[in-house]
């Protein structure tokens, strides 16, 4: 399946891009993170992160559909 994957903060810096279209075998958001983490060498665990699919925060177990837009959200550090 093909997905649009967006990166912010240190994920963006590590991936070297803020968005990419990616063909992946992942069925869930968690599997997709693991795939892109391996591809880009992310050293961060998703345990402390959350994920948004098509603009809505979802559990990591959410099943992905072709064309979904996925945004990985590191722990917030505003203020």
């Amino acid at each position, binding site marked *: 399946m093909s997905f649009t994957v967006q990166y*912010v*903060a*240190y994920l963006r810096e590590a991936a070297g891009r803020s968005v990419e279209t990616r063909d992946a075998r992942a069925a869930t958001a968690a599997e997709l993170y693991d795939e892109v983490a391996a591809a880009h060498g992310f050293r*961060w*665990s*998703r*345990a*402390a*992160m959350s994920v*948004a699919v098509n*603009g809505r*925060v979802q559990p990591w177990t959410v099943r992905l559909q072709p064309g979904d837009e996925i*945004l990985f*959200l*590191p*722990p*917030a*550090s*505003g*203020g």
Partner: protein
Amino acid sequence: MTLFALSPDPLDGPALHRRLHSLTDGAVVVFEGVVRNHHNHQAVTALAYEGVEALAAETFAAIEQEAIAQFGLSQVIAIHRVGQVPAGEPAVWVGVASPHRDAAFAGCRYVIDELKQRLPIWKKELYEDGHARWVNEA
């Protein structure tokens, strides 16, 4: 009147403050979060913030509704900077108004605490010696 937003531009505290004043509210409480020039014994020149606008708008709206419902606030303003904010400038500005001070103090505290926890925004510390570090990495 409510105003919740991410702002790429410097925050005009006095102008925001004036918007909170009304004849029916006896209490106005403002919190400004200002960029410090030091962290862990290192000289900090600025913080660089990035946020996700659409998700932030939802988070702002939820916190605003909670604050109004729980504390009976008449007005709430909360603005968080994005982009580079030099030491000494405010990065976040929260102001609330209500008829009485107890609700205003508690409501202002609630809004800033929730924003820090929930707003999809990330900061990087920029140090005087040229290196930089993301805060609160996963």
